[in-house]
């Protein structure tokens, strides 16, 4: 029975592929139309800051309505129940950090990258290098998560099971993505993101309304049925289904929650989106819009997740190629047959495409703007060579993404994302908050908090059970772990705040009061912000 579903659920690869191809063609056309000839750096990195708050808000949510959320979280809820639900709560609440503390101030202060803000009143070269390092590492982790989703999805939807065939498809997808970035820059990528987010919201809303209707508009009935079909039984609906009951499991759960709520507004590709709007007011509007669509989406995902458990059953989901990540596509097949499956899978593909394109752009901007223009050329690079470097970096990052996608597979993508979030929260959040709100913060403090957070996070991940020494580890058969938690957030995030404080207090160099005045006035009022 379960095998049958898995086989049937591939539906018709022809439909899946054609829906996807139609999407790609439409977006390519829009990217082509929207693109400005002779792009300036502002066009390439920040779409000339010409998007409205509403457009950017939808695009922002598009960054999070990613493969990780759509496939990963719906799968986590279907298989692990309540613990998966925690993900979606964290994902939504996290926007408050962006809304209250970071978004508007960041928009007013920087121009293209996170490094702009971190280095604003500090020594340019070391801080920009540090910011770029953090951006590249975080983006790489996040990208791995997205590409890991792609492999499973291909197996499920195109019925391609050979490693070679999957590699071929990932390569094709990667090439389309690089093309978007090279041709469209930030404007093209943002449009892809807007279209995709709209489609995804429609799909999830449709599916969840259908499921709720089928169960007589009773959430309780859905949960009931889900619990009955789950091997976890009643405990599907209770905490601990995923993380278990041990003392370390519980601590891990708290660590994860912390990384979720603090990490999202510290991700470089999200922060960079704030530069695509003209001013702080629009930045605020975009977070408000983003919050609404996240609200809708995650309510929908809750229903879709438990609905998948109720209608498809966790066993069938786990046995399908792609494992947990296949819950939403399998449910789509149950609900709307091959056509809906085709649409949902095309949207899921588009999601990976759009998010990875955004990540590639972020990485290339960070390298070209921070490392090349400001560290290597000490601010003397002309705009044209900077963009050329950005494009070359985009190609290099694209190749890395393709290779990463081919290598990683089978991991729950939401889990991989949580590692990227922990790193982002550790390296970026403390630094950004200090530099925006703490007068005394100086170069030494900045470097301590970036490298301290990033370094401790990386070390703890390497020696965690996520990498070795557990049944779900990435490297099986070896065991060199000594850190008991899979998520380093609970240690590395407070540590980066502490190090930023100590670095500032213990160092002899003083904050530059002139620059501090400039930055504070600029961040609160936008005075001096030139587009």
């Amino acid at each position, binding site marked *: 029975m379960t095998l049958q579903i898995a086989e049937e659920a591939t539906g018709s690869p022809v439909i899946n592929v054609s829906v996807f191809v139609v999407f790609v063609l439409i977006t390519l056309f829009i990217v082509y139309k929207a693109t400005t000839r002779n792009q300036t750096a502002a066009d390439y990195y920040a779409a000339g800051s010409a998007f409205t708050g509403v457009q950017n808000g939808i695009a922002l949510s598009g960054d999070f309505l990613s493969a990780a959320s759509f496939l990963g979280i719906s799968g986590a809820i279907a298989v692990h129940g309540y613990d998966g639900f925690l993900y979606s709560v964290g994902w939504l*609440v996290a926007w408050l950090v962006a809304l209250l503390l970071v978004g508007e101030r960041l928009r007013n202060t920087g121009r293209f990258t996170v490094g702009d803000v971190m280095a604003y009143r500090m020594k340019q070269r070391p801080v920009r290098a540090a910011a770029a390092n953090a951006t590249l590492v975080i983006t790489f982790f996040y990208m791995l998560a997205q590409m890991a989703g792609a492999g499973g999805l291909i197996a499920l939807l195109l019925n391609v099971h050979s490693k070679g065939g999957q590699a071929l498809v990932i390569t094709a997808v990667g090439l389309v993505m690089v093309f978007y970035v090279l041709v469209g820059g930030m404007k093209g990528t943002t449009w892809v993101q807007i279209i995709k987010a709209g489609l995804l919201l429609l799909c999830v809303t449709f599916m969840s309304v259908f499921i709720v209707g089928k169960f007589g508009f009773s959430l309780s009935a859905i949960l009931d049925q889900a619990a009955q079909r789950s091997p976890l039984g009643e405990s599907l609906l209770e905490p601990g289904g995923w993380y278990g009951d041990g003392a370390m499991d519980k601590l891990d759960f708290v660590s994860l929650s912390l990384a979720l709520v603090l990490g999202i507004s510290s991700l470089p590709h999200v922060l960079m989106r704030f530069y695509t709007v003209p001013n702080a007011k629009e930045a605020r509007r975009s977070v408000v819009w983003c919050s609404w669509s996240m609200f809708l989406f995650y309510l929908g995902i809750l229903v879709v997740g438990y609905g998948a458990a109720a209608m498809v059953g966790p066993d069938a989901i786990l046995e399908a190629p792609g494992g947990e990540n296949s819950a939403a596509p399998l449910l789509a097949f149950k609900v709307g047959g091959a056509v809906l499956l085709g649409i949902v899978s095309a949207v899921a593909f588009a999601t990976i495409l759009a998010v990875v394109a955004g990540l590639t752009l972020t990485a290339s901007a960070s390298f070209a703007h921070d490392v090349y223009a400001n560290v290597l050329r000490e601010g003397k690079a002309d705009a044209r060579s900077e963009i050329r470097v950005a494009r070359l970096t985009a190609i290099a990052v694209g190749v890395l993404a393709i290779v990463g996608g081919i290598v990683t597979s089978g991991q729950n993508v939401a889990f991989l994302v949580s590692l990227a979030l922990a790193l982002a929260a550790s390296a970026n959040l403390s630094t950004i908050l200090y530099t925006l709100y703490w007068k005394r913060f100086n170069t030494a403090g900045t470097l301590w908090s970036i490298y301290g957070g990033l370094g401790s996070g990386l070390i703890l991940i390497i020696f965690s059970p996520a990498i070795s020494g557990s049944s779900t580890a990435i490297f099986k058969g070896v065991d060199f772990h000594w850190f008991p938690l899979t998520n380093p957030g609970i240690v590395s995030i407070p540590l980066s705040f502490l190090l930023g404080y100590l670095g500032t207090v213990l160092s002899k160099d003083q904050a530059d009061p002139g620059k501090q005045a400039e930055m504070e006035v600029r961040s609160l009022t936008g005075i001096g912000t030139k587009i």
Partner: protein
Amino acid sequence: MTKAVRPPAPNSSERAAGQGFAGHGDENGEPDFAAIQASPEFDQLRKRLRRFVFPMSALFFCWYMTFALFSAYGHGFMSRKVYGSINLGTVFGLLQFVTTMAIVLLYRGFADRKIDPQVDKVRGLAGVDDKE
């Protein structure tokens, strides 16, 4: 983006000719940031913003961590059934959705009424056009 460090004091004739407390700082037309920062209007803007933003952040963070800690350590409590198969944990989680949107709307209202006018005031005094 990275500007040369400005001369510390704006020249006095320009300052006298400038509007409000902050004349046009230097020959590049840079505003005098130190003067703006020291002005009571800016101080009020900063205070207002911090008085709202910091407590609100602390509030949602604690509320969210309460949820997370109960989910981790209060299994029995969170598993209590409230209505049908819906347990306290699920209700708690859905409440997080509600409070998040409430804070979003609250902040939007606050920023529209209290922050934006004050920003305009400071910008006006600094002699910067309202709209870019």
